[in-house]
């Protein structure tokens, strides 16, 4: 498959996920939390997936052809994060800024989410050739290692949002640790 077709297929697949997610939430008892939580989770899945591209191509060099999908994956991770944040602002708090501030203040887990989202914004905004050329590729690469703190904080945000330690965040955190160790051990 040519790369453009691959990218289109991934775009469509993730659009289907988004539509399905909205549909599920509308059908459920609590649209607001369901959509908020599902979009947050999908953002994490896609961020983790985007980190898998390098190790996978190291193991199977032939799969290098899929590398262009990393950008699509990352951008959709940001899109789901936007849905997550917008649901919180509009549906959950109905633009009650004072109420949101009350919720945020003194709440480490929300701060982690906010900082992570701010970093993701930088990454999404600089995910083009122009940004790669702006201060040279090395600088761009350095900026994009921000994915690690961003994802680490987002996972902390997810973990701390639970009442009890649950298996899902633990599993995602384990995957992240494996990827981190791999990077530290084997990356250039």
């Amino acid at each position, binding site marked *: 498959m040519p790369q453009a077709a691959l990218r289109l297929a991934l775009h469509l697949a993730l659009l289907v996920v988004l539509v399905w997610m909205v549909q599920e939430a509308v059908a*459920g*008892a*609590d649209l*607001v*939390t369901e959509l908020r939580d599902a979009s947050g989770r999908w953002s994490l899945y896609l961020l983790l997936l985007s980190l898998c591209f390098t190790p996978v191509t190291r193991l199977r060099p032939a799969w290098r052809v899929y590398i262009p999908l990393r950008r699509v994956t990352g951008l959709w991770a940001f899109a789901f994060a936007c849905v997550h944040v917008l649901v919180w602002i509009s*549906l*959950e*708090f*109905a633009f*009650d800024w004072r*109420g949101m501030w*009350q*919720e945020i*203040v*003194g*709440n*480490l*887990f929300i701060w982690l989410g906010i900082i992570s989202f701010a970093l993701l914004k930088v990454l999404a905004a600089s995910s083009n050739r122009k940004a790669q050329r702006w201060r040279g590729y090395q600088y761009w690469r350095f900026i994009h290692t921000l994915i690690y703190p961003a994802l680490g904080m987002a996972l902390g945000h997810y973990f*701390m*949002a639970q*009442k*009890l330690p*649950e298996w899902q965040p633990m599993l995602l955190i384990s995957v992240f640790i494996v990827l981190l160790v791999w990077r530290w051990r084997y990356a250039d």
Partner: protein
Amino acid sequence: MRIKSSEITPEQVFRQRRRMIALGIGSLAIPAVHYAFAADNSAADVSAMPQASIDQDNQATGLTPTKLDIINSYNNYYEFGFSKTAPSEAPKTLITSPWSVQIGGEGADNPGTYDIADIHGEHDIENHIYRFRCVEAWSMVIPWNGVALAKVIQAAKPNSSAKYVRFETLHDEQQMPNANWAGGPYIEGLTMAEAMHPLSLLATGIYDQPLEQQTGAPIRLVVPWKYGFKYAKSIVRIDLVEEMPRNTWWRQNPREYGFYANVNPAFDHPRWSQATERVIGKFGRQDTLLFNGYADEVAHLYPDLHDRRYFF
């Protein structure tokens, strides 16, 4: 339920009484009182048109009850799974009939075992529309049917060592797929004064329908001024005891949950604000009220309202 047909109040009479009760409460203008007693037993409630009675209770309280399908599909019942939908989606494995509740403990001079029909037969079924506030900062309005907890306790003849009431949920791996999440049965507790308060109920129904597995069938605690985790579900034991019971969430996460768990918008949860709440089925949030709006009725139970212990 074994009820002779002669005991069933004709619908006409029932509704007339309802109207009189609603009128009575309205004209007395008692603030925030939600008692709309159906003087007869549960058969009347089952035979009457639910919506009609709810509407009249509604006029008396000014609260709009959450829709039944929402109440029945958005639940925290960890014994049936951790998500909000797991309890209603789980197979119906809970055997709620026959069901007996053991009432005892060192504080009870007249311990005994009752089945649900006994409890219904001995005490009046009351209908109360209460606010429901979860510690997770969401809320509903629920039209409960149940008996006054005080009457059930009184029947057990409490003695001087009855300082607290301990509630125990069924713990059965056959009937509950996640029975062991807390390593034992779900435990809750109240002080004697809280348990004897007229707002405290042992609920057996919602909207004049029996409780579902996911809402704590067949009998559960209702204490509307406290956070929802206090409302022990599917109760099999009630003990009158001398020592403060160590309730499940207190044991699970003592940094975040305690014994009293009274609703207070001014005392935040360690991880979120309790100042406002999300109303399930609506967008946006509303202000949370001190004691969930029942301060006039219950504030006197707590000598120091600045004591963090009572709100955690």
